[in-house]
């Protein structure tokens, strides 16, 4: 059976074959399968060398020092370590955290957890373009604010926040700044020497690396302090215990090295494909792009399709095209995307929205065929509309 065309790269990406090839060398008896924490033999030394090389590759993509990279199981864990780690370490200094309404659940849920522990959390709104109002952020910072946590690129609409400006505001008030960069690393330039960021969460599987591995950048000068959230051996400078998965780490390192090399080419090619997809649809009535058109990454198109129920459209497309919707239709009450409603869409408009995301392995044929099928199914559903 032919696989559906994959247009859901914001959800996850396939592992780049060059990355998979390298990972394989760290699994089998013939390879470097040792425990990087084994200091008494060559198996351990060579595994540690591979982990250190990958740490340097990850650091290089964001212009950081290798020592500032802490391995985690993924971006969700990195977000948890950053937010709960700061809150716990600085609990005597204050109990106020600021975030935004369009954050991923991997940020909102740790903040919600802290609220239950007695912390005060300010959740800032965004404009219809998905961007934060920096004056509002400045005004929200208080004497007892510990942390500002804002994502770099939104996972649903692809909008890019002005991280440098947000960091400058946080630092003006001596407040730490955490960035969820799951959707931006490898897609837009990130420079830790230029950006006022103290903590930055990174994911591997969004940029052609394996799932199950991520990292947290922790600034050393001036040092951002954290309380560990996982204990048991003191790995990763005591911040994240647990045997390091060498093959996953090597995979993430290689994926980041490729991303650094290909960022400009990937971005140009993907932007062209996105524009081509939009050209195929834009003449249809009642289709609009959600969020800022100017401040967004190349590989995403989030569209509202009037009079076309999102889940039905996705189900009709399922055998042919893999996409995401703007809703979670898991109950009698359809739950619209919190991001789309935050930028001003009605529940109905959010439920009738689709996210098309394009990546390194998308072809022009995928785009033309995907857009053709989408047009067909929209027309079919609209014909049934009462």
């Amino acid at each position, binding site marked *: 059976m032919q696989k559906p065309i994959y247009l859901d790269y914001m959800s996850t990406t396939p592992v780049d074959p060059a990355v998979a090839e390298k990972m394989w060398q760290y699994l089998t008896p013939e390879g470097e399968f040792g425990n990087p924490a084994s200091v008494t033999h060559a198996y351990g030394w060579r595994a540690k060398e591979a982990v250190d090389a990958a740490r340097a590759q990850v650091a290089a993509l964001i212009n950081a020092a290798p020592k500032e990279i802490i391995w985690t199981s993924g971006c969700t864990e990195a977000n948890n370590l950053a937010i709960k780690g700061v809150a716990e370490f600085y609990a005597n200094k204050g109990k106020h955290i600021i975030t935004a309404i369009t954050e991923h659940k991997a940020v909102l849920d740790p903040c919600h957890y802290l609220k239950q522990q007695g912390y005060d959390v300010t959740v800032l709104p965004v404009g219809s373009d998905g961007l934060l109002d920096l004056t509002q952020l400045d005004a929200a910072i208080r004497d007892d604010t510990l942390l500002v946590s804002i994502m770099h690129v939104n996972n649903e609409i692809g909008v890019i926040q002005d991280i440098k400006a947000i960091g400058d505001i946080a630092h003006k008030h001596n407040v730490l700044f955490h960035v969820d960069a799951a959707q931006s690393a490898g897609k837009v330039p990130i420079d830790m020497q230029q950006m006022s960021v103290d903590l930055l969460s990174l994911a591997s599987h969004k940029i052609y690396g394996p799932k199950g591995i991520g990292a947290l950048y922790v600034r050393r000068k001036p040092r951002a302090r954290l309380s560990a959230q996982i204990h048991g051996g003191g790995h990763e400078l005591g911040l994240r215990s647990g045997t390091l998965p060498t093959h996953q780490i090597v995979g993430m390192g290689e994926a980041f090295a490729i991303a650094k090399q290909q960022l400009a080419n990937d971005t140009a090619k993907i932007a062209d494909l996105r524009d081509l997809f939009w050209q195929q649809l834009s003449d249809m009535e009642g289709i609009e792009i959600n969020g800022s058109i100017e401040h967004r990454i190349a590989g995403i198109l989030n569209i509202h399709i009037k009079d076309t129920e999102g*889940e039905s459209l996705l*189900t009709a497309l399922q055998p042919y095209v893999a996409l995401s919707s703007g809703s979670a239709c898991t109950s*009698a009450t359809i739950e619209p995307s919190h991001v789309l409603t935050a930028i001003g869409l009605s529940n*109905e408009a959010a*439920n009738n929205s689709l996210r098309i995301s394009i990546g390194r392995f998308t072809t022009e044929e995928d785009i033309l065929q995907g857009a053709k099928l989408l047009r067909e199914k929209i027309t079919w*559903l609209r014909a049934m509309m*009462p």
Partner: protein
Amino acid sequence: MYSNSLLQHFNGTHHAGSLSNASAEAHLGSKHEGRLLHLSIRVQNHQIAQARYKVYGCPATIATAEYVATWLEQKPLTKAQQMTSNEIIKDLQLPPHKHYCALLAEDAIKQVVMNYEVCNDKLSTNL
């Protein structure tokens, strides 16, 4: 994930449309609720000769509309109202959070038959 039976009805919407010579219609739901169902029937000799629907909603809503329209055709009016949501739930293997779709379909049948009867009674009275 939906059952094969539900997906077959969703993908094969043979009864979608409207009837220019409908004997009765029922309009249920609202766009605000995320579902709309307009059911039309043409009655001949106390039997439903044709059933058609217009629908907006999730795949389960569309599939139940097709299921009900298929089932109604060639049924005597007296039997039409015997269809219950339980049967729809069972045949389409609707997950619990989609049971409301079967209830909407059951209500549509009841209402279209009632509308037909009210209309017919009026005609008889006027005669």
